[in-house]
């Protein structure tokens, strides 16, 4: 139990620092490609253990979002998107429940439920997160084409980073 909390805490710190210090400054300076925002911090919410209380997920999502906002100079924007991500997590988990169901003691990882299941899970949540993030950032749907372009480009790039992380560390819990 203590081990589980410690692991999640360390993951929180590690992915957060990776996001705000390294990925924040990573920009491809070409037309169109410069729309890419590499966003991997939702992975922290994705990998929280199965039996976590939903309201705790929300609070963690809020804290994470506010911390990211501090570095991105965007008060509230990342927080709003991350809270939503945390809120839809249990619904997405329900929706894509594998045939054998989940074991309460597990965490939703590649190691536990296979890579196909995990990619579906991560893809749904990341797509929602990015779309909401860029929509709130623009604060209007006038730029819907731009928002969609940004979402798709950033989704592909971020997904690559998330999968590299998962294959590299292959967390069990």
């Amino acid at each position, binding site marked *: 139990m203590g081990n589980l909390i410690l692991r999640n805490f360390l993951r929180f710190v590690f992915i957060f620092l990776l996001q*705000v*210090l390294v990925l*924040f*400054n990573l*920009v491809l*300076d070409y*037309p169109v490609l*410069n*729309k*890419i*925002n590499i966003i991997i911090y939702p992975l922290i919410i994705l990998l929280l253990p199965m039996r976590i209380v*939903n*309201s705790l997920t*929300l*609070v963690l*999502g*809020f804290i994470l*979002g*506010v911390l990211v*906002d*501090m*570095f*991105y*100079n*965007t*008060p*509230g*924007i990342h*927080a*709003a998107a991350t*809270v*939503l991500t945390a*809120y839809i997590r249990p619904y997405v988990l329900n929706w894509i429940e594998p045939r054998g169901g989940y074991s309460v003691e597990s965490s939703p990882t590649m190691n536990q439920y296979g890579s196909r299941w995990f990619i579906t899970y991560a893809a749904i949540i990341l797509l929602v997160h990015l779309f909401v993030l860029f929509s*709130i*950032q*623009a*604060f209007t749907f006038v730029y819907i084409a731009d928002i969609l372009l940004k979402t798709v480009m950033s989704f592909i790039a971020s997904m690559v980073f998330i999968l590299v992380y998962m294959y590299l560390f292959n967390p069990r819990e």
Partner: protein
Amino acid sequence: MHNLFQFFARFGTTILFIILEIICFVLIVQYNSGQKEVFLNSSSFYSGLLMEKYSDATRFYRLSGVADSIAKDNARLRAELRFATIDASFRHDTVIDTIYRQRYSFISAQVVGNSVNQIDNYITINKGSAMKVKPGMGVINDAGLVGIVRQTSANYATVASMLSSQTRISAAIKRNGFFGSLVWNSNSSEYMHLTDIPKHADIVKGDSVITSGYSSTFPKGIFIGRVESIGYESGSSFYDLKVKLSTDFNNLSYVYVVLDKTKPQLDSLANAIIR
């Protein structure tokens, strides 16, 4: 009472969700309405410190670029000094020059955080109110314009980059003095658009664009970039000029904050008129 507990057990998460989202949107809207004191930003002590530590750690890899830019800057300064070096023997001791009084001074700062692909980009620098950096001051580097100071803490400042949807900087064509507003349309970190220049102005590709000096933020005549292509705003009598910026925003290391000694006077005049 029992019903109340049941209600919270069923909808507690959703209620918490709504409350947290409301807090988020209050933050977003407050910030957009130009709230002066927002504590959640990169000039705050902890995030500034963390960014600076990371920047220090990776500075080694950027050193060659930094050395080049400093060398270029030194060369420029040396060129300006040539009278001083040749005519040193003619220097008088107490000349109080009443015609050319110092108007601008510069504070050098190191960039510790930077972005170019957001809608509004910000740069964090490691000089703050302790070094007399105040919101509203211009920031330049050896190549051109960088941005305007937005917020300061004691040791750090957040600079609104030129690459921001809110940027409007008064800029002029060097050759003939026509001036307009420089804006950014969030497409590329290399280009900005110069608008509001009337169509009867004679503009050719490659014209130098400089600061107009009509505000106290930037000194007059700082090089911004060159006209890359000439377009027209549809249905209006103004040009839409694409300007290639001389500042490389992807590679900012050292910048100068512009301190204008006449700013209080200019501001009080402007305020008197508004009132």
